[in-house]
């Protein structure tokens, strides 16, 4: 990769901003307009949210998995693993309990 120029970096941020904008407008429009079934709406919401998460990580926080040093990548992936276990486990167990009450 060559030394990045100021203009190119600014374009990167603007691209990220544009993508994030679209991924924000779609879910808001969907909920305000209605139309889709609740389940379909939730799926689209989740997909847009995840996509925007990745967009902001990539363009604003410059997380580019190819270029990371190992320990940084391990830190982020391990935190994500802990979060999935704890948050996923909470929702699973308490949700299950809720259904049985």
């Amino acid at each position, binding site marked *: *990769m*060559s*030394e*990045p120029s*100021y203009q190119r*970096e*600014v374009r990167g*941020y*603007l691209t*990220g*901003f544009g993508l*994030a*904008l679209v991924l*924000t407008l779609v*879910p*808001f429009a*969907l*909920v*305000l307009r209605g139309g889709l079934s*609740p389940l379909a*709406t*939730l799926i689209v*919401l*989740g997909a*847009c*949210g995840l996509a*925007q*998460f990745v967009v*902001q*990580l990539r363009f*604003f*926080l*410059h*997380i580019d998995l190819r*270029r*990371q*040093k190992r*320990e*940084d990548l391990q*830190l*982020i992936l391990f*935190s994500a693993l*802990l*979060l999935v276990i*704890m*948050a*996923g486990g*909470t*929702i699973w167990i*308490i*949700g299950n309990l*809720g259904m049985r*009450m």
Partner: protein
Amino acid sequence: MKMPVLHPGLNLGPHHGEAHKRAEKLAFGFWVFLMSDLIIFGLMFATYVTMANPMGLAGGPGPKEAYDLTSIFIQTMILLTSSLTFGMASLAMRFERGKAAISVWLSVTLLLGIGFLSLEVRDLAHMIDIGAVPSRSGFLSAFWGLVPLHGAHVAIGCLWIMIMLIQMRVFGLVPLVKTRILRLGLFWHFLDLIWIGIFTIVYLGALAS
């Protein structure tokens, strides 16, 4: 020429000398903090999701009565724009475009942050008015644990921006000030990441289901 990337996030670049080298350890340490913060937020989200049902609502005010989606939309736009303006401040620093450029972009970010907070405080005050207080139900406890926690982070971020504006004026762009602005940038972008979860799960998700 190959650009060595020392840490996740925007790198200052070798032309910054000492500040660039020091940033490696400092930014990594800050990422450790951010990831622990991410886990706190993640568990608050999990609690909210388990409470967003009739049992959790306990007959109290629900999403439809308590949330003002127009205000949330404006807050989302403000915070997203502030992430972009902070990015511009970081780039002005990285490409050495002068203290004035950095100060202007940081000040714009600060104003957007304060705008975001005033809207949020107004919404929370409205919730208190209609009786949607934390002690009303498990759902509202989870809400008040999560959204104001993010708001408190933004308030700290605003305070941090003010401090950096002063430090930049007093000390100039010394390595310490540069690496602090670098970490503040990570913090600010991180808050916008958390906000994606808040508007998607807390507001839109609860209103859609």
